[in-house]
Every structure is written in C-alpha cells, then in structure tokens.
C-alpha cells in the first residue's frame, strides 16, 4: 500500500514567477501535489511578527522545530530568505487543511494581529505561519527548500542549483 514510483516522482522542483504578486497579496502555487503559498508581506505585517503580545502566544517563536530545511530560512521572526516574500507549504500541521488568509487585525480574535486561520479545527498562525497557542496544530507550518533563481522567480523544491535539501522533509510529514 505504499506510494508507487509514479507518485514518488512528483517531487520535482517547480519555478514560480512572483512578479505579479502585489504587496498584501497571497499567491497559491503547487509543488509535489501540495499547495504552496507566496505571501508578499507589507511593512506593517512584518512589524507584527516581533510584537511581544504575539511572541508570547507562539508555541515555537524561534522556529526551533525541524519545520524549515536550515537555520538560514528562519532569519529571526521572518522565516523567509527575503523578509517581504514569505514562502510556505500551505498545509495546517494539525490535519493538513489549507488555512484561510485572515490579514485584518482583530478579526479572528480580539487580540488578532493578522495571519492565517484554519477552518477545520480553528488553528491560528501569524504572518510567518508560526502556530499560536490555543490551536490544535502542534508546529509551525513547513517552509519548503527554495532559492531565488532571479529577483522575481523562485525555485521551490531544492535549496540551491546543486539540489541542496532536495530530500529534506519537515518533521510533520
């Protein structure tokens, strides 16, 4: 009953052009049959990431769990190689639903700073897809291995042209 060879071969890297993603916009792409987010974060969004009120609510504020290929992807509170361009696999770490994009503050809860809210069992994430206490989800959402091929094209599925981290998997899979 294990996945067949054809399924296993779906793991090839994909190139994504982000030039049309406006600030504040979320792009949904596909890699390994999984949805991938590219969120163009505005400055105010980046600022929320270091709010003490948010940080104290995070289960893993420092991104210590193995949910990104290497420390380079953590980059402080940004969890991205380039702070403005956030890339993550759009699967809730609870049971793999795709969370809703809920950028407006004070919407999901009174203290809400903006981020993602999962419709399935209510897991909450900040703009870096770090999981918030009170969620059934245990971990931050995974950041896939990727690198910037050019200013506007990102390759998802490997961390360098030589295929770094290609077979890395986050602890949630």
């Amino acid at each position, binding site marked *: *009953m*294990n*996945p*067949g060879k054809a*399924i296993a071969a*779906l793991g090839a890297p994909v190139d994504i052009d982000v030039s049309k993603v406006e600030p504040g916009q979320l792009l*949904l792409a*596909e890699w*390994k*049959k*999984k*949805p991938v987010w590219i969120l163009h974060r505005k400055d105010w969004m980046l600022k929320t990431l270091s709010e003490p009120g948010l940080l*104290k*609510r995070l289960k893993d504020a420092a991104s210590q769990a193995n949910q990104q290929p290497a420390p380079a992807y953590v980059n402080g509170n940004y969890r991205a190689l380039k702070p403005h361009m956030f890339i993550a696999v*759009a699967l809730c*770490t*609870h*049971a*793999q*639903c*795709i*969370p*809703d994009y809920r950028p407006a503050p004070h919407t*999901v*809860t009174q203290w809400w700073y903006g981020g993602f*809210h*999962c*419709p*399935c*069992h*209510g897991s909450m994430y900040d703009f870096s897809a770090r999981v918030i*206490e*009170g*969620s*059934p*989800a*245990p971990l931050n959402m995974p950041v896939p291995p990727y690198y910037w091929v050019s200013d506007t094209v990102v390759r998802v599925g490997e961390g360098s042209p030589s295929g770094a981290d290609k077979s890395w998997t986050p602890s*949630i*899979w």
Partner: protein
Amino acid sequence: MTTGTTSEQRGLMGWINHRIPVVDMWREHLTGYAAPKNFNFWYFFGSLSMLVLVLQLATGLFLAIHYQPNTHLAFWSVLRGIMRDSHWGWLIRYMHVTGASLFFVLVYLHMYRGIMYGSYKKPRELLWLIGIAIYLVLAGEAFLGYLLPWGQMSFWGSMVVVNFVTAIPVIGNGIAEWLRGSFIVGQPTLNRFFVFHVFLMPFALMALVLVHIIALHQVGSNNPDGVNIRENLNKDGWPKDGIPFHPYYSVKDIFGVSVFMLVFFWFVFYNPSGWGYLVDKLNFAPANGIKTPSDIHPLWFFLPFYAMLRGVPDKLYGVMTFAAAFVMLAAMPLLDRNPIRSIRYRSFLYKVNLLAMPVVFIWLGVIANGQATEHNMVIGMHATLLYYTTFFLLPYFNRQRSAMTTIVWLVVLEALVWGVDFWMYAIDAHSWGLMLQTNWIPTLYIAFILLLALVSPKLTQDGKVPERLTQGGLTH
C-alpha cells in the same frame, strides 16, 4: 434454552434438516427463542438495523456497478452517470445515502436502549463489546464511503481523518502515507477506499452482526425491567415470562418496519438532502486539493466527536480525547457495577445523569455544527468535560455513598474541570473572560448532582427490583 434436538420431520424439510439443520436453527432462533414478554418501543432498533444493513448491501451493489473509482471520473459518474443517466439511479443512490444516515439514528437509539436497561451488565458484557466493535466498523464504513463521490467535503473530510493518524508519535506519518498511498489524498487513496468500502468492511460488518446475534441468543435478551427471565422457568423449562420470538415479536418488528419505511421513504422522495445533513451542499462541488472549503464539518453523526477534537488545543490530546469517548462507552460494564440493570429501579439522581448523556451528546453536535471560532472551541471543551463527567459519575452510583465519599467525589470532579481551564489559561490558549462564560455548566452540573446527594440521600436510593416482569399481557 432448548437447543436443536434433531426433529423427526419427514418429507423434503426432514431430508434437508438431516443434512443441514435448517429446521432446527429456525426453531432455536425464532420459534423456540424465548424473548421476554415486555419488549417496548426501544426494542425495535436491532432488527431495523439489520434491515438497513441488507438495504445498504443491495443498493450498494448497484451503485458499485455504475461507479468509477477514478479521480477524474468519480464525481461525474455519481452526479451525472448514476443520478441522471442510469435508470432509477437517483432512487438507488438516495436510498443508500438516506440509509447510511438512518443507520446511525437506529444504532444510537439501540445503544441508548442498552444503556438505559443495563444490557451491558453481566452476562451481556461481550455482547456489548461486540456492539461497540460494530459501531466502530460502521463508522469506518461510512467514512470510507463518504470519499467516493469525490466532492469537496469528501476530499477534505478524508484528508483530515487520515491525518489524525499522524498524531501518533514517531510512526504516525509513515502510517498515514501508507494509508493514502500518496503524499495527500489522491487516486491511490480513492481506489483503496473503494475496495475497503465495498469489499472489506461489509464482510466485517456482516460477520460481526452474526456474532452479535449468536452472543445475544447465548445469554438471552434483557428487557425493560432488567429481570433475567431464565431464572424463572415453568416445569417444561420454558421461562414463565417468555414468549416465542416468532410469531409474537416478528409481528411486532414488522409493524416497526412499516413505520420506519414511512420515515425512510419520506426522506428519499421528499427531502433527499435532508436539510443538508444527509448530503452536504458542499459535496455538490468536485474535490479541489488546493482549496479548503471555509465551512467544513463532518456528517451529522460524527459531529459530537468533532466538537471534542476541536475543544482541545493540542493535536495528540485532541485525538486522544475523542478516542477516549468510545473507551468510556466500551467501559460501561466496568464503570457501572450496580447490580440493578434497568433504569426503572435506579435512584432519581442516576436517572438524571442518564438523561444528561444524550442531552450532552446532542449539545456537542450542535456546537460542532458552528464554525471553528475560539468561542465555539471553548464551549466544545466544556461540553466535552460534561460528557466525561456523566461517565465518571457512574461508579458513584454503584451503591449509596457516605457523606465523606460524596464530598471527595465532588472535589475531585470539580478539580478536574477547573484543572483543565487552568491549564488552558497557563498555556495562553484562552482567556478567563471567555472560559467563564461556559465553565459554570459542568461546574454546576457536578454540584447539582453531588450536593443534592449530600443533603438528601433518598435521591440516591435505588428502588426494589420485582421478581417477575411487570408488564406485558401474555403468559405462556
């Protein structure tokens, strides 16, 4: 119970019976099976469940003939092929879908009957456990079948449930992948779910039901008085309060069947989507792996467990909490060790607690029907605590308790409820402002039962069980 002594039947039946004991079996399980004379409304649901099982197998056969287990075709083979293009396909499908839902109505009523009349107590513990196994297999069967039309709810429902396996530490992820045969729910998943749904699980279900009946006839039926009729035999060895199942109860059951059929076909012909509860409206859109519907919930019969899961802000504990809800049911024979079976002769407060069980269960379902807001999660958590409380109170009623014991019980149960709230607060999951809105419900419920027991011990005093059945006109 007289077992089949080879009958001296002549003719064709005699010839057959000599080789295969059909006549003896007929006698043993129908005309010669002594059933208590006082069966009531609640004893309809076992035979009705068997009827629905047969209906599901029959309609399922024709559906399988027209269905395509392929992610590109499945949705259309159902919504166009079966529903429009094949003759009477819509009727067959609606019967199957309505049957699945009503199956759960029947089984829930059937289980509650067992809880009310203490049918899980000696000597029926195994019968009860087989029942729990049937429930679990039935739940699995319903879950597997729900993926097949490959609609949005099918897809996301399966996605979520298979991923619960990943809550198991270390090996969980591997198992989930093995179950799906893919990184996410996909073609391999659909194909194997189809095979399990039409092949593996129906066989398991049929085998379990057979064992269920054999176990029932081995120990004999319980009844609304909870009195064992086999302890009171006439000189022929026949229970004084027993009547042959056939023709007396076969006739009663046929009446039940006709009423059930009215309800069943009312849904099939006039309300096939059952206000969106039998067929979810989101399932009229084909599965889309990159868009989760924002109003997601399981079919109605799983809603209470969904509320439990959502109430716990932790993956592993959440799955354990709803799995333990079944463990509680399975553990009924251990929790309730009072020698009196039927609710009729139990104390007032025990009756209140028993009534609270279905009320909480339905309440959990109502909560789960709402969206996954923080507010609903907190209410769900408190309703879950209430659900467990009703079970934890069962052993309290095993005999009349001293004031000291009552106080200990009170303190421990209240500490449990408040402990969970303190834990939520400690991990910053919810604020007290939100939790205080609903935690008075389990708090007051426990206080109500146990303080009343303290001030008025009469309310925990059981009644006296009669020696013979009290109702039913027929004697034999």
